[in-house]
């Protein structure tokens, strides 16, 4: 049996969305610890979008974005991506370095590795929420980062989703520190064979 996100019913979708909520909640808590400041989060939105609409994520195919990708191994395999607008990445780095007021969209080595680390922490807390709920062993790899057009970065998860269906599942998060708001999206990308394992562990399929 092969399952894709195209065919899920509302109940199954709700379960995936709920994981998104818990995962993103965990992620924000970790971020708050990392920067030692209070971080607030709006309720994350989980969405299923067709490829034709993928570019709407983050405002168009040519928008400059930062993508952080980790491979996932263990009981399920695949990858997870955290993607955010370049301006949001700058804000996040500024917050991390103690309310720096830089505006440059070029990041130096230190800032890039800080961004990777943020991606690492956010995705790892998302995955640990998922592992906790499902009792599955899920281990992330070291993060890789790319800065390029949104369409090009999103082609990586879209291709993986494309193997089973015509849509992607992503979780939109919005967090804020003080008056600074940062938007970012998570994309959990199970390998073809892992959908069933994941949905079974969640109890949404027999």
């Amino acid at each position, binding site marked *: 049996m092969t399952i894709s996100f195209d065919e899920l019913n509302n109940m199954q979708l709700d379960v995936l969305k709920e994981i998104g909520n818990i995962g993103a909640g965990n992620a924000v808590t970790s971020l708050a610890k990392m920067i030692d400041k209070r971080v607030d989060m709006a309720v994350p939105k989980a969405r299923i979008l067709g490829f034709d609409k993928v570019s709407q994520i983050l405002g168009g195919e040519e928008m400059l974005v930062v993508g952080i990708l980790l491979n996932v191994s263990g009981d399920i395999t695949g990858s997870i991506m955290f993607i955010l607008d370049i301006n949001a990445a700058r804000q996040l780095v500024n917050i991390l370095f103690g309310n720096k007021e830089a505006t440059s969209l070029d990041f130096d080595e230190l800032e890039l590795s800080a961004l990777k680390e943020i991606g690492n922490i956010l995705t790892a807390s998302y995955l640990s929420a998922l592992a906790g709920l499902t009792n599955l062993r899920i281990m992330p790899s070291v993060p890789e980062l790319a800065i390029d057009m949104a369409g090009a970065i999103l082609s990586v998860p879209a*291709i993986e989703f494309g193997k089973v269906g015509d849509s992607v599942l992503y979780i939109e998060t919005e967090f804020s520190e003080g008056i600074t708001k940062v938007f970012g999206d998570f994309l959990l990308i199970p390998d073809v064979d892992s959908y069933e394992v994941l949905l079974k562990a969640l109890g949404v399929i027999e």
Partner: protein
Amino acid sequence: MDIEIVKVGMADLNSANHPCMITTLGLGSCVGVALYDSQTKVIGLAHVMLPSSEQAKNRSNIAKFADTAIVKLVDDMVKLGAKKERIVAKLAGGAQMFVFSQGSDLMRIGYRNVVASKEKLQELKIPIVSEDTGGNYGRTIELYSNDGRLMIKTIGFGVKQL
């Protein structure tokens, strides 16, 4: 004269008569297959995501796969008056956006898309006159019907013309 601008999305294809420009934005590991018939000036562009429909479980979108998309694109162009024997191809995209030390399958998909597109074109006896593939960056491409030129725009890697 204003020319018509046609957009091609991800896993999508389109063809048009002269005068026209067909574009696809932000190609990453996907491949843009640009076809051109210099006599009728009919052009076509496919934004291919995956190499082959053969192992796919869901083949409803034929524009998604290199093998089926190219065949459909040629058919569409012939319907618009192009002659298959005159069609030439230009390729762009197929980048590797993320580099992992343990090279997994996921990471080589761009290269495999390029290879599959070339194989299909060769099978259909459509010559590939130029290509700008590989690398680790995204590309926006524009195909023009008046001379079949393919403009390639990148962030940080300049503009190229094929």
